[in-house]
């Protein structure tokens, strides 16, 4: 298992959201840089991407859940040990946004249902996808931002088709690393991260 040493830390990220909002499209755009119409996702599809953020090698395990309610029932496996959650909605579909709201409320409320899925350990992002179809927009940026602010989570907009807004992966990785240093300040990764972070901030203030 020499491969297991090729990264410093491993994070699990899960995607939730109604079907056809573009969860798999965002993932395949990020992992393979491809955009295509494809079969619907049935069970958690699984992708791995290794990235380097602030000199720390991070392996991202990206779990892409099928949008069908019945697959949500198999959730405990899916959410176990997740460190990052992307709630994706389609900006042209009102109900997909409402679904994200209700999902966030119910899931964070019944956190203990899922093993090890603790909200304070998790980083949540709200993602509005399909900005390429902004003409048909049904969810305004303001209301999405309002929801995310009131729940203290970040909101980003993307277009998997036009490959915009994919900064979200890097952004969530940084946030997860920060959370990690908060939760376990003594671990070697945390030390590395706080060190690199301080030098970065030092440099930025310098220049």
């Amino acid at each position, binding site marked *: 298992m020499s491969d297991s040493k090729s990264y410093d830390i491993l994070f699990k990220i899960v995607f939730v959201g109604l079907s056809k909002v573009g969860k798999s499209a965002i993932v395949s755009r990020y992992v393979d840089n491809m955009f295509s119409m494809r079969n619907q996702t*049935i069970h958690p599809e699984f992708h791995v991407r290794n990235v380097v953020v602030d000199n720390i090698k991070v392996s991202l395990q990206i779990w892409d859940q099928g949008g069908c309610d*019945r697959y949500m029932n198999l959730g405990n496996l899916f959410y176990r040990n997740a460190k990052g959650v992307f709630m994706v909605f389609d900006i042209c579909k009102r109900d997909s946004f409402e679904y994200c709201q209700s999902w966030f409320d119910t899931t964070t409320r019944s956190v203990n249902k899922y093993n090890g899925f603790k909200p304070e350990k998790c980083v949540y992002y709200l993602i509005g996808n399909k900005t390429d179809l902004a003409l048909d927009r049904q969810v305004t940026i303001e209301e999405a931002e309002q929801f995310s602010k009131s729940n203290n989570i970040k909101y980003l907009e993307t277009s998997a088709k036009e490959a915009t807004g994919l900064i979200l992966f890097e952004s969530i990785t940084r946030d997860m690393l920060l959370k990690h240093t908060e939760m376990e300040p003594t671990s070697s990764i945390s030390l590395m991260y706080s060190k690199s972070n301080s030098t970065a901030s030092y440099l930025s203030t310098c220049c």
Partner: protein
Amino acid sequence: MALAFPPHAIQAILEIESNLYNYRGSFIPGFSKEELTTGGTSSFVIKEQKLESKSKSRYGQFKFLLSQDVINIDSLRYLSWGGIPVEQRPLVWKLLLNYLPKEKNLHNKILFEKKNQYKQLVTQFYRNGDLQNVDKTLLNQIRLDVPRTVPKGFSSTKLIQSTILHKILERILYVWSITNPKISYFQGLNDIPAQFLLVFLSQYINLYGDLNDLNNDILEKVEADTFWCFSLLMNNLKNRFIDFHDGIQKMSIKLERLVKLKDLHLSDHLTNEGCDFILFSIRWMICLLAREFDYALSTRLWDSYIAHGPNFGYFHIYVCAALLTTKEWATYIKEKEFSDIIVFLQHLPTDNWNIYHIDYLLVRAHKIFLLEMKSMVQESFQNITDQFKLKSLKEQQEQKELEEFVNNINNSNNNNNNNSNSNNNNNNNNNNSESLDDKIKDIQSQMKIKNNQLSVNTNDDKKQKTTTTTTPQPIQLEQLKEIHQELLVSTLSNKEIISPVVMEKIIELVTFNNEINLLNIQPDDADKELVKQVTTHLIIVMGTLLLVSVVLIIVIISTSLTILALQDKLTLPKEDDNQSDDDELD
């Protein structure tokens, strides 16, 4: 048996297996490649020719069967299990799913009726897909998924992108979901009617070409056929999808158990890496492997499923287990860690697979079934023999204690002088009983059939009477004897599998036994029930055999005794004679 493998399936598998061995090396990567390298090209060509003639004769067989006025469904079922020629597939599937009756002259009438019935259902429920009058969320979900239904190998064909086809699928799925509200629609279900649609369309058009040949009449026919065949197929799978979560869970547990039997190392590795079977097997279970193989291969696999009969869903799990334990893949998986394993299992490299890989897959599924049978037989045997052994040992111990007691009394009465001796005796007796306890434990842990014979011997009289009275069905003693012997041989010599001959005999036997109605029980329980029955029968037979041998021994002893007595009688007069001679001499 209404189990995972009905007799016709086993028969077909044995034939496939023998065919595969005849052509080994050229197609199957798991086989030795010696033949290929030493045989050179000439033998390869001959083999291909042989194969062609083989498939031609199969084609002829199908043609003959289907040309009959009343089609023999049983032979068709057996023949179809090994694969159906492309041209005959649409008709054969309809026949095997009981959509069409075996009387050929009724076919047109029924097709017409069914078409009209379906039309009625569509007007009743679908109502032109007007969102005002229908279940909105259901139809919307189906509308999202239908354009995303892309059977493997059809990603850029005109057919799959055509809106006509999408509308057809939408109607079929919607009407079915409304008429089966307990299951209703779920993602992945769309792949199943899509497969039927392609097969039935292939009767009229080239699936990869343009769609000029399509006209309304064909489309209407195909749509109705697809709907009914899809419903009939789903009827067999209903149980496992009504409680979705539970059904999937059960299937993946069963899969895990089978993989464990076949490749313990693999299943251990998967568990250690945290790869829950459900993570990769859901898609296999829901789409019946249609997403894992090319259209040509998945339809071939479905030939076997449809020919298999109503329990094919159960058989499907064995196929999944065989798929997972594919040799090269298993060795790859064993070296990898979680992420790599899951990514691999979600994109199985089946692109270079051909029909023979599917044949081999089916053969391996059967092998796993045999492994399971063997382990179940052994388990059940052990359970029953353990009970026998324990009982007999207890009786022995009781007897020993009684003897001890009697001895002690005798000792104390008679041997007042030798107190020390009697103490020793007591100690010895205690030791004996302790060692008996140990023995019981030993036997519980390691049970051998030879011991079992002894135990049955000790209390055969009672047991035999009670067991025979509880089984009213006539048992074919001769057959049972044979099976019993072969089973003994196979368990003792630790063979990999029970020989197919034995299996067949067990199957034959089961048909005699009308007491258990196998159709009424769950296949899983049916297996256990069958094994239990067979093993109890075996034990009865063993008991009778031993009884006979005991009787024989008694007869021998008594005859020898009488002979001895006679000899004595004969010799005595001789002495008298001698004496009398002596007397005379005197």
